[in-house]
């Protein structure tokens, strides 16, 4: 035990064992989080109604996917939804949204978490009247394109020169994200859309 070789063998074996376990878990996790996997819905979920409900068995809130509820009054084919999501993610990365906001709680904590932003009651309560929009998605687009025009508190979102196309793609991305099973994060999320 007081010879380095003993501990060298220990270091190598413990690292190797843990790495192998991690690889197996990674294979399973990746299959669960692919779009259309166990925990993450297919991108075409943007054509459906999304709710959020407490599941007593899981002791956590889980997304509920309902019937058809079109986004921007359009029905996206699978290929169109794929393209839209890709554009949405590119818009999110190019504007470095994560360096103010958080996604699944990862990011910068300066602005609200966006995990369940699509389900947030604030759009209907505040932004729809403020932007004079008939739908939630329209209100979100208007806000994203000109956030400095709709300040709600002292800390404002800067204008990131998002085009209409960018903003629609981001809204679609947020709708898809809200349908991901996040083991109940964020805690006790209070949505009005719990059908």
């Amino acid at each position, binding site marked *: 035990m007081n*010879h*380095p070789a003993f*501990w*060298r063998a220990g*270091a190598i074996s*413990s*690292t190797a064992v*843990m*790495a192998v*376990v*991690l690889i197996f*878990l*990674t294979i*399973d*996790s*990746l299959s*669960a*989080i692919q*779009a259309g996997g166990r*925990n*993450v819905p297919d991108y075409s979920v943007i054509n459906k109604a999304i709710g959020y409900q407490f599941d007593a068995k899981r002791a956590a809130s889980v997304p509920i996917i309902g019937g058809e509820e079109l986004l921007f009054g359009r029905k996206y084919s699978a290929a169109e939804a794929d393209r839209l*999501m890709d*554009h949405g993610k*590119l818009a999110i*990365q*190019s*504007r*470095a949204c994560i*360096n*103010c906001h958080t*996604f*699944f*709680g*990862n990011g*910068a*904590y*300066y*602005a*609200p*978490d966006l995990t*369940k932003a699509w389900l947030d*009651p604030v759009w209907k309560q505040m932004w729809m009247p403020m932007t004079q929009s008939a739908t939630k998605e329209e209100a979100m687009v208007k806000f994203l394109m000109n956030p400095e025009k709709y300040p*709600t*508190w002292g800390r*404002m979102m*800067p*204008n*990131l020169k*998002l*085009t209409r196309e960018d903003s629609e*793609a981001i809204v679609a991305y947020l709708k898809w*994200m809200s349908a991901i099973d*996040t*083991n*109940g994060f*964020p*805690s*006790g*999320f*209070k949505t009005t859309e719990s059908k």
Partner: protein
Amino acid sequence: MYRSQQLALKYFIAAIALFGIMIVFGLLASAQYVHMGFLFQVLDFSITKTLHIDTMILWLLMGFMGCIYWFLPQELERDVEGIKLAEIMFYILCTAIATVAAVFIFVQYGGSNEFSMWFINQGRKYVEAPRWAAIGIVLVVLVFSYNIVATAIKAKKITGIMGVLMIDLVPLFALYLIAFPRITNMSVDLFWWWWLVHLWVEGTWEVLIGCIMALALMQLLGTARRIVETWLYIEVALVLGTGILGLGHHYFWIGTPEYWLAIGGLFSALEPLPLLGMVVHAVYDAGTHHMKTTNKPALYWMMAEAFGNFLGAGVFGFMMTLPQINLFSHGTQWTVSHGHFAFWGAYACGVLSVVYVALQKARGLEEMNGIRWKWSFGLLNFGMIGMVGALLISGIAQAFYERAIGGSTIQAFIDAQSNLWFLQGMNARLVFGVLFAIGYAVLVYDLLTIGGKHRTKQAAVLRPA
């Protein structure tokens, strides 16, 4: 002094300069919490914060590289192979960092296209650097690896520490490649991104700093090689044995399966154990030497590393790592508090310790001491403890008002951020941040001047020859 050690000093200068830039942008970002509208649409929070954390990663990485370039020729008793290439890479790296920083400050972001990813901002936390710069970092790491491996081959000598170091270079390089792809699915994106961030920081970096501390201990306290190597192996076994699956504590809420709650919780709960071991070891080492050394600042920073790591990663980490608690604390200022303390304890203190070790040798000083290092040591640590304490209060308030009471909505977020507990915490953080910055200024002054008189005397003795 070997040529590689002259390069090491350059790396230390760059690292300490970046440390200062990190503090400047940290102060700006924290001021943006306190004064709403500060630098709005000029230098928004996303930019100040990006520069704050990216310079943090870079100064530590450059510090590590400086440490290795310092000890490598001593360890292998010959100058480093390919040193010319390494010197060129140093300047390329500095130019690349300055260019990326200028783009972040003046261009900030581009349109929704691949051009932005290649030349402006990749928009992924910690790896915002556009792809061209990421390629530069890959090249720097490759040359760094070549220097180490080629020198060992030429020297026909592989010590235990060198063996660990060389194996560690493989994941250090491979994991960084995750900085390149753009993945549409956020869950998959974050899954791999955590491989990069966690396995780099809590895996390869821990091993790297372990190697550096082993080399530093031999020089600082004259500890026998057999002892430090044994201890290094134990540390690697414990750190990687708990840390690899400790990755799971980042997989609680990103869409990954429920079993990660149990795995991540268990393994990250085990992480304080090796840290406790390091504290006991540090007390043992310091005690058997009665805190006597010719290099007091290096020894104190090394002790700060052991205790800071235990408090920041161990105590602050354990407070928030169990899934039932993390559900509330994750993604709040609570995380920020833990992050600051853990990085400070685990890495920053260690790098500062080695900088003092290197300076003693570079300036040929018999003893390193004085009053200034004590002030900087005190102010930096006091400032840091104040900052993390203030952030802890803000973070707990945020978890309480936004999550537990407010229901985690956008309005709940705003309410929590406007709460008095939260705001007072943020004010206090800024005040302690200023103290920390003063500590940094004293540190720089001390590093520039320590042993000044003796240095001139020695230089005078040397000159006639």
